[in-house]
């Protein structure tokens, strides 16, 4: 009898932990929305502001999606911020002399090429991704400073009006940039979960030895991952110019840490410990809601940083406790 009671209690707490752990980030997101709605009922929950949040997170969403692919394979890409900067700087530099239809693909090809170089250095030379992308980040930062040095480091003249529409235009009241983000996220979600290449990427991240014995081309997949990440970071840079109408050599820097925070928040959601696109979307939404709500409440930027860090630790702790609970259970059985 007592044994049965113990079991019941265990099941109960287990259910609580599961909900708390798996959906902790989602619960946190709803809490944030609820708090901001209560504090700013007339402004925060309006459709216009919610669309505004989506618009604000669109670029972070795009480059976080690329980072997710690299992290799925257990590889770091520290160069995404620098690639976004380079993409922005090149776009703003090309546009005065070139038609956007020509300039944008060229920029995207360059950024994808940088991803290719990252991938080649990592997959064939065996340099750790941390060091390789740290190196390319340094190189690209130098290049962006060099490229802008002739023009007082800010490029803003001669960007055609037609190009800026991409960043400012709307369709059915929804900004184009939101469509870009949703398109990228849906494509990558389908790619990672419903194609064999995507499943193989998870295999590479989960157990590289087994993946190799299973005949999965690890090197090719890694190169593909870094190319995707480079392409999406470049796209982020291009759209950054479309939104702001200028580029300067630090413009994309903050995407690096923000994207890592968003993707890690995502890995603490639903499928704990696994990087996935839906989680990344949740992470990006949390960061966007936080930024938007704090701005509406006139909370200064530095407090936003503190809250961002605290939420990241809290979310991952909640998720980790859930996992730890099971680990302890299993050990006790042993």
């Amino acid at each position: 009898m007592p044994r049965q009671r113990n079991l019941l209690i265990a099941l109960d707490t287990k259910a609580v932990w599961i909900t708390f752990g798996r959906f902790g980030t989602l619960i946190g997101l709803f809490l944030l929305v609820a708090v901001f709605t209560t504090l700013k009922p007339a402004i925060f929950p309006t459709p216009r502001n919610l669309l505004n949040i989506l618009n604000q997170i669109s670029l972070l969403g795009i480059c976080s999606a690329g980072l997710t692919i690299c992290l799925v394979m257990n590889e770091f890409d520290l160069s995404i911020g620098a690639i976004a900067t380079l993409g922005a700087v090149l776009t703003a530099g090309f546009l005065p002399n070139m038609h956007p239809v020509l300039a944008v693909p060229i920029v995207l090809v360059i950024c994808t090429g940088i991803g290719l170089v990252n991938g080649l250095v990592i997959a064939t030379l065996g340099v750790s991704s941390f060091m390789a992308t740290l190196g390319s980040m340094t190189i690209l930062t130098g290049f962006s400073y060099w490229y802008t040095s002739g023009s007082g480091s800010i490029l803003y003249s001669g960007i055609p009006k037609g190009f800026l529409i991409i960043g400012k235009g709307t369709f059915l009241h929804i900004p184009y940039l939101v469509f870009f983000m949703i398109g990228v996220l849906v494509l990558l979600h389908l790619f990672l979960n419903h194609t064999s290449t995507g499943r193989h990427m998870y295999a590479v991240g989960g157990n590289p030895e087994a993946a190799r014995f299973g005949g999965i081309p690890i090197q090719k997949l890694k190169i593909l991952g870094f190319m995707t990440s480079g392409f999406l970071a470049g796209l982020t840079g291009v759209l950054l110019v479309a939104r702001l109408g200028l580029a300067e050599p630090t413009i994309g820097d903050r995407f690096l840490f923000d994207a890592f925070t968003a993707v890690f928040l995502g890995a603490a959601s639903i499928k704990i410990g696994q990087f996935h696109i839906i989680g990344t979307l949740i992470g990006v939404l949390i960061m966007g809601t936080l930024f938007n709500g704090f701005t509406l409440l006139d909370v200064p930027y530095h407090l936003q940083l503190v809250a961002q860090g605290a939420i990241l630790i809290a979310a991952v702790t909640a998720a980790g406790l859930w996992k730890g609970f099971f680990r302890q259970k299993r050990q006790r059985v042993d």
Partner: protein
Amino acid sequence: MNPILSRYGIIAVLLLLFTIFSILRPGIFPSVGNLITIFKQIALLGIISTGLTVCLILGDFDLSIAAVATWSGVLVASLLPLINMWVAIVAVLSMAVGVGLVNGFFSAMVGISPFIVTLAVQTMLRGLTLWYTGGYSLYSDIPRAFVNLARGTFLSVPYLVYYMLFIFLVFYTVINHSSFGKKVYAVGGNPIASRYSGISAVRTRLVGFMISSVLASLTGILLAARLSSGQPRAGEGLLLNAFAAVFLGAATFHGGRFHVAGTLVGVLFIGVLNNGLVILGIPFYLQYVIQGTVLVLAIAASGVARKA
């Protein structure tokens, strides 16, 4: 041949850099005065990298070191007008012990990836620093004695160089010749095996994070002394350079293993490269490009040699 290249590849590149700079600027680069300058320039990087080395040996990341350094510099600059210099320094270092405990608690005891924990702590400390300073530098009432800690010289060698060498020596001895050092390598090499041999991985990792935080904090304090002010972005550049130095060090002597002597080589490597590029009058953006390229090539070279 190959093992030699993989062991001494980084040192060979370092000597090569040294030779190139000496040939290009024979009157300036290889002078005693400039060598002392190089050591002065790398002193702070050396201190912060030593702490990071301990963390990396344990298999832990510490991304919060630069934020800890910046916050410590700002905090000490704000305390100096109020209390005795040594009390202020000890207070700031104890604060750093606390940060290390927080990092260690969440990484080693709760079991979150240290990359995430220290990323979050770094973000929070950056916010805290901005809030505390309002974005401005703190430079009023910094006592001369404090500034002298960093700017003073003994036998025409700056104090900073002695601090760095002292800390290297202490940690070289501790990591290579003490039981704590053996525990550090055991936990970093195989945490499960180390647990079965009775080593508390949790406690060792906690101490590792504390060492890394305290040395980062010391770096920040000395940086504030050198700048005679607490600046809210002073330490930012240290993070990536420290990682570069420690990883370069891991590619030296024992391929792929982090160790204190290697870190000294890595720090020297970065110091010689930066100093030489500045003396050659190369524009700063090209310096970035060259630094990144040399970094990747040096590591790739020793890595390829190891594989072959």
